[in-house]
């Protein structure tokens, strides 16, 4: 009794401890990346020319007034102390004060725009997944479509959001009048209608990338020996495709999709600007010219955190998709 229990515990703890240690190590790596990256942003913004106290003090400030403002803004303390102060406020949603809009906190400025940008990014992510996979699978599954799909993705890959925007606006908004040319709309259906063109513009290049990776990895898997064996065993083509081709191709596809989603938030800034949408990206760009660096810091950190979280999720997904990674403890 005690013997079996003991062996069960040791077996349980052995494997689970291994897994927990791997997860902890990975989380620590992610946190370290976020801390180092946000500190780099913090330091860069702190080193920017121009003293925020001078901007606030009005005309002909006395040195005492400047010193007082420095103390108020906390600028008299060392950089690292200020950074960790800022970092400790992060979990509470305290992102500091806007320098330009003195009465509103950074969180107040981000709040209403957050929804719009997330809507746009999620919309684009869904479009990328659906269109990218569709085009990729068509090109990868049917030999006759391979050439045309390769040509299509090569061109689409070269269309950035800010060039797609004028093309889409002049064709579908002004030409055919199907969609509005500017703005984000309000309410779910109205937003869906307003953000269709921006989401398309944002999705197009990434979509082409996903389609290309899907197509080439499907073709590589189809040509591999294990697929030949599966076909030789007399499995129906659909089963071979689903269980042997698609399952193996899912790993590079999910890698690329993860990187795509991770980069969408930064790409959204350009598309928001192109369509005159008041989102996080346009707020950041405006804050750069207004020298409202607390806002820039907040949006930049959001972009970095979103990137790190997404890539970690993709890594975790890989261990689900690829059993080989599981037995080796999670990392290649």
């Amino acid at each position, binding site marked *: 009794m005690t013997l079996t229990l003991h062996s069960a515990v040791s077996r349980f703890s052995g494997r689970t401890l291994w897994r927990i240690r791997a997860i902890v190590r990975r989380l620590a*790596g992610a946190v370290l*990346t*976020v801390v*180092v*990256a946000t500190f*780099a*942003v913090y330091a*860069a*913004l702190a*080193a*920017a*020319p121009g003293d925020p106290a001078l901007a606030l003090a009005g005309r002909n400030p006395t040195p005492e007034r400047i010193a007082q403002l420095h103390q108020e803004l906390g600028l008299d303390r060392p950089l690292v102390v200020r950074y960790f102060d800022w970092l400790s406020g992060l979990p509470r949603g305290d992102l500091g004060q806007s320098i330009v809009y003195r009465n509103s906190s950074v969180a107040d400025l981000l709040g209403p725009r957050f929804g719009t940008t997330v809507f746009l990014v999620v919309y684009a992510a869904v479009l990328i997944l659906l269109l990218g996979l569709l085009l990729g699978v068509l090109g990868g599954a049917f030999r006759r479509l391979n050439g045309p799909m390769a040509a299509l993705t*090569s*061109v689409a*890959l*070269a*269309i*950035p*959001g*800010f*060039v797609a925007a*004028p*093309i889409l*606006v*002049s064709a579908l908004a*002004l030409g055919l009048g199907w969609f509005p*040319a*500017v703005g984000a709309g309000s309410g779910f259906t109205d937003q869906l209608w307003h953000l269709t063109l921006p989401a398309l513009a944002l999705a197009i*290049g990434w979509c082409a990338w996903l389609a290309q990776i899907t197509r080439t990895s499907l073709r590589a898997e189809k040509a591999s020996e294990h697929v030949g064996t599966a076909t030789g065993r007399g499995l129906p083509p659909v089963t071979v495709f689903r269980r042997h081709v698609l399952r193996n191709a899912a790993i590079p596809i999910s890698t690329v999709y993860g990187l795509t989603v991770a*980069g969408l*938030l*930064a*790409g959204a*800034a*350009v598309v928001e*600007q*192109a369509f005159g949408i008041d989102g996080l990206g346009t707020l*950041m*760009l405006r804050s*750069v*010219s207004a020298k409202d*660096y607390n806002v*820039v810091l907040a949006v*930049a950190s959001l*972009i*970095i955190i979103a*990137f*790190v979280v997404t890539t970690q999720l993709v890594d975790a997904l890989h261990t689900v998709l690829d059993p080989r990674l599981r037995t080796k403890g999670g990392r290649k």
Partner: protein
Amino acid sequence: MTAVTSTPVTASPPSRLRRWRKADPVLILSVLWCALAILVAVAAPLLAPYDPSQTDILAAAQGLSAQHWFGTDEVGRDIFTRVLYGARLSLLGPVLVVVIATAAGTALAIAAVWFGGWFDRLLTRVLDIAFAFPPLLLAVLSVVLFGPGLTAPVVALAVAYTPYIARVVRSAALRERHLPYIESCTLAGLSGPRICVRHILPNVLPLVRAQAVTSLGSSLLDLGAISFVGLGIQPPSAEWGLMVADGRTALLNGSPQESLAAGFMIIITVVAFNMLGERLAERAEVRA
């Protein structure tokens, strides 16, 4: 003088000729377009029919015509002329980015592979962190520090692209590092820097070249986006990304020539760079 082991023989004249005859039309078109773009950038003052900054209020916002092939913008500047002149800044930026990033990335990667140990681990760790910075975000920070213009975005993108190049070169150099010929170079008493520069570098060079050409395309897109949002080249300079932004008001008033002309120049040039990079990468793979 001559190396103990020679690098794989590069193409001799006859085989190069045969390769050209086999070459596909896409590759030829890409090379031609790149050559044309460079020619236009260099000879813009000779080719352009007008002065790029000469305004003509009486001829503002015109459509396509024999006098103005691509029409005129809101202040009557000839769009065709500005597209030609735009090739200068639009191509100069990516070339600078790629030259800096390729040199830095290749040097770092080969050094990391050569020294190995903590230096290699540190570099890999730093690269991992650097990947968390999208190019646009780095450009924003760079502009905050140095102000808008050509320099700040070029520096930012060079920093953003270095990790990508370093990663590709590192894995290729790592393969070379453990091949027997490196060992025989060491036994022959060659110095570390000499082995790196004369033996490892030539063998990873085809890959570096392919990566550099592909990066030209993506940095053209990124620099265009940076100019488009107003952080890069400032008006009234002619640059394609800036022209797309410039044409927005005219576009909403129903004359999209300026945005579309500049936009299509970006698309075609990037397709040409990408195709060229793809073919070079295929060739590098065949050699490896």
